[in-house]
């Protein structure tokens, strides 16, 4: 029920959602796709990750989501390598019988992925490349899921 993939290639949303809906247990599939924004003259983005830990960390997040909500499936596909504005970077999908847990789990997974999964972005603008800085708003988003 967890499908976690790190790849350079684009992903196929039709196939991923069909797999989560197959069998008729999932009435609701919530998908997040993150895309490269054409902000401030961005020409391209290059993603690096920590092979091994990336998959392990995402699997831990997915297990936590499955413990919190009655899900029928979770799919996370994160791309690495060089991407252009508009390209998809990541797919996070959560499936459940009803929509409320699917929405909550998808948002939880994204917030944790942004703050815990070991990926780093390099941004190229006007021929210059620099590492993207982490955003404080992402830490704030993740912190709201912490249990007291």
């Amino acid at each position, binding site marked *: 029920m967890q499908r976690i993939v790190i790849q350079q290639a684009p992903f196929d949303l039709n196939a991923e959602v069909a797999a989560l809906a197959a069998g008729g247990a999932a009435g609701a599939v919530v998908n997040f796709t993150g895309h490269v924004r054409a902000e401030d003259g961005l020409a391209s983005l290059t993603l690096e990750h920590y092979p091994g*830990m990336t998959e392990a*960390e995402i699997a831990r997040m997915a297990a936590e989501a499955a413990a919190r909500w009655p899900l029928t499936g979770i799919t996370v596909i994160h791309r690495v390598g060089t991407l252009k504005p508009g390209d998809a*970077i990541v797919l996070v999908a959560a499936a459940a019988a009803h929509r409320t847990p699917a929405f909550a789990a998808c948002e939880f997974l994204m917030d944790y992925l*942004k703050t815990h*999964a070991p*990926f*780093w972005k*390099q941004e190229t603008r006007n021929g210059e490349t620099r590492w993207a800085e982490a955003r404080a708003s992402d830490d704030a988003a993740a912190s709201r899921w912490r249990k007291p």
Partner: protein
Amino acid sequence: MTLLYFAWLRQVIGSGEEQITLPPGIGDVRGLITHLKGLDAKYAQAFADEGRIRTAVNQHHAALDAPVSDGDEIAFFPPVTGG
């Protein structure tokens, strides 16, 4: 033990991976960082601001006081920016 460096840390140190033998008396991440900073100017530069560094021990996020031992895989990297 295996040390891994990612993103700008890898670039400052000039390598993504190295094998070292943990010197006696070093028991946690903080001690390991102090040891590395004493080795060479490039480590001193990479670890100059510890607030900018995150650590994983055996592929789990770890704090500065997390225990380390020979045979561990220790990774150093900036705050993550995926998604």
